[in-house]
């Protein structure tokens, strides 16, 4: 990864020096190796501070909206999963293609600091990756963990190393985590529960919500100029969880608004400070869309119309979605 980091720094400096782009989106180092933050640089001499390693999970495509508004041509380093988000933003007319210079950046899976801590590593002084192992140097001793055990959940369901949009590729692709299971397994588990169990599950998940809106703000599909949750006169604009119904409302509405546009990047679940399993809501919509309207992957390209703005004359009847389900109140 260090080799790729050097390539990233060099390429960013070149593009800025040549004047091909006015801005570059990448990451800056933090205090602990695992806290890299998204950063924007606009001159070649700032590029030696850019970093890239196994702790760069953020999807940078969302920042393109800002730069599109400002009319600045921007180079952005995109991991394969991030490219889906760019296509989605193009489809939603939120960014201008000519202002985006997409650089495909190899990735072999990003690591989850929460999993590393849950495995007992605390008081972390430094983290490094040694082949298949993650070596954590802590104030309480060294800890070695298998890389495969501490990958981000979203990386476990990697969609593959192919870039769905790229003006150039930074380097040869890296081997990505192989996913052979059923990505809808957890959704099916919940579907199989009784209505009361489902209700109890979601009540306990969604009542943790503190309405921080991080999920909305990091989502590439949530890019409305005026979000319904920001308008003070809408009934769902509550900044506070006045009761459980408000919280459910926020999540149901947001999941619905992004249905068919959610690329499955997994950022919403990663950033939630309360650890709510948001991916289980969006994946449910993805499964439904696949089974009711045909296989569809948002962001795979920037032309195919999204499921909610298209139709087939022989679409299934709406009521069939719940027919045959057990009676409940």
């Amino acid at each position, binding site marked *: 990864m260090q080799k790729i980091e050097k390539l990233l720094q060099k390429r960013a400096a070149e593009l800025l020096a040549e004047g091909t782009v006015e801005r570059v989106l990448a990451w800056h180092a933090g205090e602990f190796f695992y806290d890299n933050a998204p950063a924007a640089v606009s001159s070649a001499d700032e590029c030696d501070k850019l970093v890239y390693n196994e702790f760069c999970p953020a999807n940078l495509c969302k920042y393109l909206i800002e730069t599109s508004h400002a009319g600045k041509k921007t180079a952005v380093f995109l991991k394969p999963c991030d490219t889906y988000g760019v296509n989605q933003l193009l489809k939603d007319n939120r960014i201008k293609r000519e202002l985006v210079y997409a650089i495909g950046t190899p990735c072999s899976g990003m690591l989850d600091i929460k999993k590393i801590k849950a495995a007992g590593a605390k008081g972390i002084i430094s983290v490094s990756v040694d082949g298949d192992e993650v070596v954590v140097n802590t104030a309480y001793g060294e800890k070695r963990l298998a890389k495969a055990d501490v990958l981000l959940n979203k990386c476990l369901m990697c969609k593959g190393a192919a870039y769905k949009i790229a003006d150039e590729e930074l380097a040869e692709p890296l081997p990505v985590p192989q996913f052979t299971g059923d990505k809808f397994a957890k959704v099916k588990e919940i579907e199989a529960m009784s209505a009361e169990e489902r209700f109890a599950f979601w009540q306990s998940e969604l009542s943790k919500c503190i309405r*921080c809106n991080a999920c909305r703000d990091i989502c590439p599909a949530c890019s409305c100029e005026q979000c319904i949750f920001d308008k003070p006169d809408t009934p769902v604009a509550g900044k506070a969880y006045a009761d459980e119904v408000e919280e459910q409302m926020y999540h149901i509405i947001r999941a619905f608004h992004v249905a068919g546009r959610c690329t499955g990047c997994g950022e919403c679940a990663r950033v939630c400070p309360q650890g709510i399993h948001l991916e289980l809501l969006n994946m449910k919509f993805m499964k439904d869309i696949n089974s009711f309207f045909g296989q569809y992957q948002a962001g795979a390209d920037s032309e195919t119309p999204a499921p909610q703005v298209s139709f087939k004359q022989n679409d299934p009847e709406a009521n069939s979605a719940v027919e045959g389900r057990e009676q409940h109140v």
Partner: protein
Amino acid sequence: MYKIAKDNLPKLYVALQNIGTLLLPCKNKSGHADFAPYREDAEIALDAPLTNRSAKDVFFPQVENLLTFKTSGKELALEQNVPPVGVTIVMGVRACDARSFKILDKVFLKAPVDTYYKTRREQCVLIGLGCSAPEETCFCHAFGIDAGAPETDVQTWLAGEELCWQAVTANGEELTAKLVDGGVLVEAAADAAAAVSEQQEHTQKILSVLPLHDFKVNDELTKDELKVFHSKIWEQLAAGCLSCCTCTYVCPTCHCYDIRDYQETEERTQRYRCWDSCMAKDFTLMAHGSPRKTKVERFRQRYMHKLVYFPENNEGEYACVGCGRCLQKCPVQLNIVKVAKALEKAEVKQDV
């Protein structure tokens, strides 16, 4: 000093629950710990590293009804919602959070006094827990806080197989007396104090090898206020910010709130107060629009408040306690440490 065996802690919880409403760190289904009311079947995690949020909810709830408007025909009646009467006991408060309450007091108990906050605060007894295993995100020492000695009514430490207990304030003494009389707490052995000291020393030793051990906020910032304000570094710092509300909601010292009306029925409307975030686009939205339209302005405002304005108005006390929650929870890894370190740079002082 008193003690209770770790195995007997459930007895302590029940005894405390009989004196007042007991809140302590409990694990939720995702395995995170948060302050929650005591229940026998709760998964209590007294020594969880750090709760998701501090216990500021106890005095400053996320939502609080202030007034109820009731109409009947042309008549309008106003009913004030009064905070409930009764003792609240919060157990497992860390040193950082304990200090944060003192900072909140400076805001809410300064004239005009916030009676809702005051009532709840006065009815609360805090039982602190000394830290024994600090994280790399902890930097309470930067603000003169001793992780092993929380500034609470009672101090406790989990040392070996026991919980050691020391009353500090008059309220703490009162509570302790009740528990001793009830046989829940017993006099600790002579070596208990030594065990506690050993733990406190060990904690300091760990802190001294962690990456933030020498982090300090520069005192000079308040003197160079305008230069810091106009520095170009804010654009760089704020580049990744999403303007969500995570940092403000998990921060123990953040205290901004909004007051809104919610119409429940045709005859009844609630005027309530709820947490608000200065990072949100619609913070203090007025008829003409928002006073800080850009993300950079809002980002700058938050940190200037914590590192410059608040200390200026409060004898040098920063509005930060080094709990590290913003380091842990920010979706894009921005936090007060990164900002304070960036402001250290000489270039900041030279930019105008």
